[in-house]
């Protein structure tokens, strides 16, 4: 299924399947709605969800706030993968500092992402 790999105990969402330039709130809202309808439907809030940034070239806080912050508010167990891209790193830092993303407990926080 689109952008979706479900393993036995966790789910991986490949963000590049939503585009490699992720910069606006409307695009982020649309991405989150698609995720909610197709990828995250029926997923328990305690299930491990892997967010894979491999292949993302540009990410800005507007897009990320509409997607990552909302996922982090709903799901308690997130793991961030392949966050080496400069704009991904910078965006995660901004979200941690200025959005509700910082108040959540997730694997990969504080630059421990793979």
């Amino acid at each position, binding site marked *: 299924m689109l952008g979706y790999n479900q393993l036995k105990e966790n789910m991986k969402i490949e963000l590049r399947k939503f585009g490699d*330039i992720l*910069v*606006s*709130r*409307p*695009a982020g809202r649309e991405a989150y709605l698609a995720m909610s309808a197709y990828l995250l439907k029926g997923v328990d809030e305690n299930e491990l969800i892997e967010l894979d940034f491999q292949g993302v*070239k*540009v*990410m*800005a*806080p*507007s897009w990320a*706030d509409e997607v990552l*912050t909302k996922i982090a508010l709903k799901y308690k167990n997130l793991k961030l993968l392949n966050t080496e*891209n*400069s*704009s991904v790193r*910078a*965006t995660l*830092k*901004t*979200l941690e*500092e*200025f*959005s*509700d993303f910082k108040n959540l407990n997730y694997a990969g926080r504080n630059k421990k992402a793979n």
Partner: protein
Amino acid sequence: MNKDIEKQAREFFAAENFDKNSEYYCKTRDIFQARLDKMIIYLLKEQLKEEDAYILSAIAGEIGNNSFDHNLGSWVGEIGIFFAYGKVNNVLTIVLADAGQGVYKTLKKVKPELKNDIEALRTAFNEKISGRAPESRGNGLKFVKANIKDRGMHLDFYSGSAKAELNYAEKIEAVNGSYQGCLAIISLKKI
């Protein structure tokens, strides 16, 4: 790119100058997104480091999309933004401008105690505040500021009668004349 691009951006939305067929005019967000994609290709062709090219694109994306986010249904002049990029005297330059409400008018709705354009710019670049409250927003210009500093870039951001000049430091001051909406000039000398 013409060295008078800043002047062109300043005057673009004036009724006597407005050119809906200009290559720099992005009437809608979709057009802006397409031209942003094209800019990344240009930046990489110009041998800019990937990490700088992607951060620059994220910064331009934030500023450009802010114009659409905060002026939807409230444009003062023509809808859309002016978006140009290229080298001016061997300095990579990105220019974005809109004929929107400007930062002061946008933020005063959610922070009525703001007194002028200077206070509005100081708030926009430093405080967690959303011009579209109760929506939780307001991290974009903080992202812009942090990364302009971290990457050794330079930003002149005009709105109303104030200017924010950001590089390793931040200076916000009144300027002669005024700009109706927002005008941003990003530059990077490394190229």
